[in-house]
């Protein structure tokens, strides 16, 4: 059981790290497209790792099934939303940031 707890702790810590770094990226990156990258990171890696970590906490199969459903749902919807967002932004002519441009 101790092994499970350590594994869960490691996963949660990694997830928290990803989540925070994604948040900082969303704030600090210079333009919309680079920020998409940061947001995508928290949504997939951060969320996935945290949910996996919670899964290993061992709280009965009902909870485990729900955690898996949430994971599946997020894995489907959040890349889709990021994709359509970037697509729509590109079509609307949101300019891409190049080295030396001012931050937007």
């Amino acid at each position, binding site marked *: 059981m101790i092994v499970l707890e350590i594994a869960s702790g490691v996963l949660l810590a990694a997830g928290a790290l990803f989540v925070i770094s994604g948040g900082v990226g969303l704030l600090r990156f210079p333009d919309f497209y680079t920020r998409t990258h940061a947001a995508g990171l928290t949504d997939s890696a951060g969320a996935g790792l945290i949910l996996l970590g919670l899964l290993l906490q061992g709280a009965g199969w009902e909870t485990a099934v729900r955690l898996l459903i949430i994971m599946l749902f997020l894995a*489907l*919807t959040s890349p*889709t939303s990021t*994709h*359509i967002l970037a*697509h729509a932004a590109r*079509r609307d002519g949101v300019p891409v940031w190049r080295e030396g441009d001012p931050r937007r």
Partner: protein
Amino acid sequence: MTTFVLINVTLLAILIATALTISGMRTLYAATMLTALFSLVTACLFVLLDAVDVAFTEAAVGVGISTVLLLGVLSLTRSREAVTPRLRRLPGAVVVLFTGGTLIYASQDLPEFGSPTTPVQTHPLTDVYLRQSQEDIGIPNTVTSVLASYRGLDTLGELVVVFTAGVAVLALLGPLMQPAEAREREVLDLVDYRVLRVVTGMLMPFILLFALYVLFHGDFGPGGGFQAGVIFASGFVLYGLVFGLDRAQQVLPRRVLWVLIAVGPVLYAGVGVANMLLGGAFLDYDTFAPDDAAAGQHIGILLVESAIGVTVAAVMTSIFFGFANRVESSR
């Protein structure tokens, strides 16, 4: 305990910061989006304050329905707010300062937050709802038993309000009130969004299944008729947004929706009348199974929750169709 206070204060601070930003924003699209964010924070606070059923409803209503309606109306009207003259803002500030001062003065008499000895917690009714309901009604989710059984008449009233609001919106925006110069509909170019269509198509059955699960699992966990109805509606809203309104209306024709809006209150009141015919009081579900009160309650609650679900789903969907039809015909 400190954990709770820390999270609570952080979320409330986020909430107030969002509200201040919304009040200062003149681009209404941005304000609407922040309203969606505001709803998400509110729902988190509801979870923190143990109101899981309320959090369920708030998330579905605040993000799934209100945002869509507000955005639809914004695309019909002006999306920029005019500057309000400073003189015009003065009475508001005076009223707010006065009311706020009064509220804070009055808050001295409020019970301590979270204390187990407040009048709310020590009232005899608390024990009825939390302990005795287990024998009377026999379902773990006391929110559902209070909603559908102890305060069933009250909920019937709420349902009639929702019904009336649906009829009012249909009267204001419905097909009978289409603007005369309705232009030909423009087919939206959704070709670019193939990923979106595929994913939505995959999700739709699960959304509807989830709504049914919420409806029937409301006795044991967070959920019930109101929540299920709103989830159904947001599923159809998603479908209408992605696949176009025409296709959504083929799946769910307007006339069917109109009938469904009326089905709910009729079924709900019908349950009450049936109870009276069986020799009990209005909405006294015990009469459904005279030997086993809990079984009777179970049948009654299930019927009533389904009635709520049908009407709420139909009202929300037809309100969305009402607004979205305008959006399409005004292009």
